[in-house]
């Protein structure tokens, strides 16, 4: 369950659990989170909570709402976000997002919106995600036995180390590096990067940094190999063609082959070297 921690000058004033679909913040007494200060508007902001996600919205307040120092109109709250309203600070805590509490199991549920305009049956709840941000409402769905309709528990966090990491390459010495390669702005944990340098042929001397999850080498229709970037290091795999790549004089078999620093790869008549390079 997500909660808000209201502080002033570093002193915790109160905690609020986000149990309601809509939690209001403001100076007036009817707000769920009342802050009796003239810098705070009567109806200052609202937090809409849909199951495990919460969205903050400034209600056109006079002095505005900041999240992590930035003024916002609407904001999808993330665990640890610091909301500033006047001199008051409100911290948003959603432990499930931190993935630390093993007791919190994610459950897959079915949300059922009555398709027919017929009157809702007893026990029916509605999944009304409307375009209007303020009127969004979702209730969890229970079937008529009172039991949760569907649940598939997912242990909250990924395993710390892939079990296959028995032969870590230099780049993966620190355990699983960031493998969500497309996550923007996330620097890879490992400071080393694999590079292929062409040693022979017209492109001799050219360097090919292996930044993507997969890098294709060779000519389609003739001979193709792929180098995959994995938590354990870089692997080369034969994809197509009658001839297979040769690594340090040994032809590859059908299995992916891990590349070690300064391995020599021969592919479609071209010699190349694999090596690790410190990331700038």
């Amino acid at each position: 369950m997500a909660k808000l921690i209201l502080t002033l000058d570093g002193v915790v004033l109160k905690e609020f659990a986000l149990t309601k679909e809509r939690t209001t913040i403001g100076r007036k007494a009817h707000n769920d989170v009342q802050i009796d200060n003239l810098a705070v508007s009567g109806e200052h902001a609202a937090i809409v909570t849909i199951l495990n996600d919460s969205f903050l919205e400034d209600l056109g307040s006079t002095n505005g709402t900041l999240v992590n120092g930035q003024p916002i109109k609407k904001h999808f709250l993330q665990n640890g976000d610091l909301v500033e309203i006047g001199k008051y600070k409100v911290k948003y805590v959603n432990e499930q997002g931190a993935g630390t509490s093993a007791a919190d199991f994610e459950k897959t549920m079915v949300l059922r919106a009555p398709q027919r305009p017929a009157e809702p049956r007893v026990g029916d709840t509605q999944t009304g995600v409307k375009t209007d941000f303020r009127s969004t409402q979702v209730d969890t769905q229970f079937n008529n036995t009172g039991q949760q309709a569907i649940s598939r528990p997912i242990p909250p966090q990924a395993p710390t180390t892939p079990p296959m990491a028995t032969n870590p390459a230099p780049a993966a010495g620190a355990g699983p590096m960031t493998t969500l390669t497309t996550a923007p702005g996330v620097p890879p944990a490992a400071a080393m990067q694999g590079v292929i340098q062409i040693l022979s042929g017209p492109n001799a001397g050219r360097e090919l940094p292996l930044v993507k999850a997969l890098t294709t080498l060779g000519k389609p229709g003739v001979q193709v190999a792929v180098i995959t970037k994995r938590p354990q290091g870089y692997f080369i795999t034969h994809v197509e063609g009658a001839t297979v790549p040769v690594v340090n004089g040994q032809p590859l078999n059908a299995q992916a082959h891990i590349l070690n620093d300064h391995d020599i790869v021969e592919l479609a008549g071209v010699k190349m070297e694999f090596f690790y390079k410190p990331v700038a």
Partner: protein
Amino acid sequence: MNLAKALEIASATHTGMVRSHNEDAIAADGGVGLAVLADGMGGYNAGEVASGIAVALITSEMRQAIPKTNLHALSQEEGDLQAVRMLKGVVTKTNTSIFESANSQPQYAGMGTTLVVALFRDNRVSVAHIGDSRLYRMRNERLDQVTRDHSLLQEQIDSGMLSKEAARRSQNKNLVTRALGIEPEVEPEIHTYDAQPGDIYLLCSDGLNDMVEDEDIELTLNAMGSNLPLAANQLVQMANDNGGRDNISVILVKIVRDFPATDTWLSRVLSWFK
């Protein structure tokens, strides 16, 4: 008509790195041009039971029905209706079967499954889906998501509440708004698209697309499209490398050549000798 020569199919399914059971079920039959994938939900082994029933029943029903239903003798529009009607009928039957099992056996109470079915015929693919299992299409080196999830997150994206990027940070990833076997009736979403030689179709469970970015799926199919079994295994491996929090299943179907409906009596006679 046997499509085995027009379609190349590879598949892989894996429990993942976290779960103890594989609740996904898959089946593919190149001969009749059918691929089925289901991701089961429910306590103990009920999820496996639900997805298992779905895949087994749909595969056997359609294997029987497709050769008997003379889709090719009809005009294309009617042929479409026929294929769509067949998918609808078999999904309805499967829904009833799972729903009744769930209601008659207490250990299976509340079980259900997502579903994605692709039926290839006459240079077309008809796809039926329920829940958050997906069909993607790779064409001209570009990956497109063909199905739209029946999930809370998709509804939030559609309503403009969440951007696709923000959706990846949501804590509500595992909420589907439709599933097979949960209610006495279900409405599958069915659409028909043109299929072209060179296309690669990917059916997958959310264990793949929650763990692997679309961009990397595209990269994989571009790099390994000429070796489908390798590509299928690579996709599973990437999901596992990224944490493998859920079961991962993929079916890849590559259109090797045209498969137009042969609607003359001569071609039907000839097809007996193939």
